[in-house]
């Protein structure tokens, strides 16, 4: 690979590693949906076999097989059928994480393909200013299952989840579209007009995916801009709350109080992303704040988190009980743990040296567990 190819690969790597929201990929759902498809495939295969056998019997009666010495009639006979050519094959290829080097071929499945609709793309920005975590709106009401909210500094998106990490994690994602973007082209399958939200036009659609498709409520806000709530893994009853959630949203760019004051990093690397997850609905306990500087191959990650147990079905772990990642530097204060870790070569541009990193970490001012003490002036 020449230098320019490496540059393109590095740019792609950086693009793919930047500003990713929490993953919604769910192995439990894949297994559950996959089992259903396997069952249906077996039923269809069994039924098809019965039909073929029945037709074969009928054909055999109408057109008796040729006897010895007679040529086989075209269209049927004793030969082995030739499979159609494979639409594609795979051979040893690529550089996935483990780097397999084997060879082989296969035909991937197509019969159960369901076209996926697109989803509007939020525009990204660069987090900056004394509070790089400005959210486009705040919820006035959330259903009882909502356990935490995650916001990022580079996407105008707010994630609400039930706090679980299991197969059926329920989430609602709020997105506000830029003024130039109208979602009228996003004609979701099953689109239905619904009652106005706060007196403004609204409609429902769904993302036909899996056994429990995501539902999307889109509505026009008071400013004329459009917003959406995308619901994943919610039951039918829980989805009835979407209009109420939407109606409660107050759209206003709002700086989010942060749990630490973060001094300037030696070398002044670019701030890349800021993410905060906090409990909601009167819950207390685990929260986390993550900051990334630099780029994917040369990044500095700062994590500030409570040492309280997570109030989730997978709870039991606390921040302090989790393994400290190799190469990270940590300290604890006021029930809060802060860690810094370089994913590149410490001391190389734009990362500080190990000594400088430790000194910098000691200057990070932790503001404790009480959110009323958090600040919107966390970055200087």
């Amino acid at each position, binding site marked *: 690979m020449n230098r320019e190819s490496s540059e393109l690969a590095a740019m792609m790597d950086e693009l793919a590693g930047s500003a990713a929201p929490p993953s919604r990929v769910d192995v439990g759902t894949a297994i559950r949906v996959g089992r259903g498809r396997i069952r249906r495939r077996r039923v269809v295969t069994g039924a098809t076999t019965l039909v073929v056998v029945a037709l074969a019997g009928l054909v055999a009666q109408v057109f008796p097989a040729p006897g010895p010495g007679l040529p086989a009639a075209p269209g049927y006979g004793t030969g082995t059928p030739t499979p159609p050519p494979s639409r594609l094959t795979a051979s040893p290829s*690529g550089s996935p994480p483990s780097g397999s080097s084997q060879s082989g071929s296969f035909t991937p499945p197509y019969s159960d393909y369901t076209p996926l609709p697109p989803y509007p793309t939020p525009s990204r920005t660069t987090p900056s200013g004394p509070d790089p975590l400005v959210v486009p709106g705040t919820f006035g009401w959330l259903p009882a299952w909502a356990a935490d909210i995650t916001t990022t500094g580079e996407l105008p998106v707010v994630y609400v989840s039930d706090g679980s990490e299991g197969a059926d994690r329920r989430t609602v994602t709020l997105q506000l579209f830029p003024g*130039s973007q109208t979602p009228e082209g996003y004609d979701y399958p099953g689109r239905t007009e619904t009652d106005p939200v706060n007196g403004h036009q609204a409609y429902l659609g769904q993302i036909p995916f899996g056994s429990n498709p995501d539902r999307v409520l889109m509505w026009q806000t008071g400013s004329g801009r459009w917003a959406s709530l995308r619901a994943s893994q919610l039951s039918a009853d829980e989805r009835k709350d979407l209009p109420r959630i939407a109606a409660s949203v107050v759209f206003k760019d709002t700086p989010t109080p942060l749990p630490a004051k973060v001094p300037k990093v030696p070398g002044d690397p670019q701030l890349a992303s800021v993410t905060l997850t906090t409990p909601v609905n009167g819950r207390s306990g685990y929260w986390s704040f993550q900051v990334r500087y630099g780029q994917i191959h040369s990044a500095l990650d700062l994590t500030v988190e409570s040492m309280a147990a997570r109030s989730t079905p997978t709870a039991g772990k606390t921040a302090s009980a989790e393994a400290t990642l190799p190469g990270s530097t940590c300290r604890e204060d006021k029930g809060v743990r802060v860690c810094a870790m370089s994913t590149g070569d410490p001391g190389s541009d734009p990362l500080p040296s190990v000594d400088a990193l430790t000194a910098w970490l000691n200057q990070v001012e932790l503001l404790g567990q009480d959110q009323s003490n958090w600040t919107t002036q966390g970055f200087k």
Partner: protein
Amino acid sequence: MSTGKQSRDAEFAEYVASRSGWLRKVAFLLCSDWHRADDLVQETITKLYTNWHRAGQAANRDGYARTVLVNTFLAEQRSPWRRRTAAIALEAVEGGVVVEPDIAATMDLQQALTGLPPRQRATVVLRYYCDLTVEQTADALGCSSGNVKSQTSRGLSALRRSLGVGRLGGVEA
């Protein structure tokens, strides 16, 4: 549940846990949207599960997963509904705000990739992000090596135009 099914599920879950992050990145480069990337990966791993025995027989399970992902993406692009809205998706990417140079370069690339036709985009991602050879890319896309070369050449030319003179000037198709 039978022991065999439990073992199969555990093996599948372990595989997905180790590979979903990688698949998600490839999916994002293909579609430029994290939501859709998640959908693509979710659909891909569901297909993997329904054909897990076949994936296990494939000598290169990662290659199998990657090919299912790419073909799921391309099949989606072929749907009439998707074509109708593709221009709007591009507009969404272009509707970004003014950003700092480092991030701007990344966003430029995202916008440039989004501007490529789906098959060219898949070819460029497979060749330069997944680091596949021309022949391996041809295998994954089910086309000839010559087709991969022409798609790569056109894709790189379009990227150069989008990213500006001097960027990617020496990348060979």
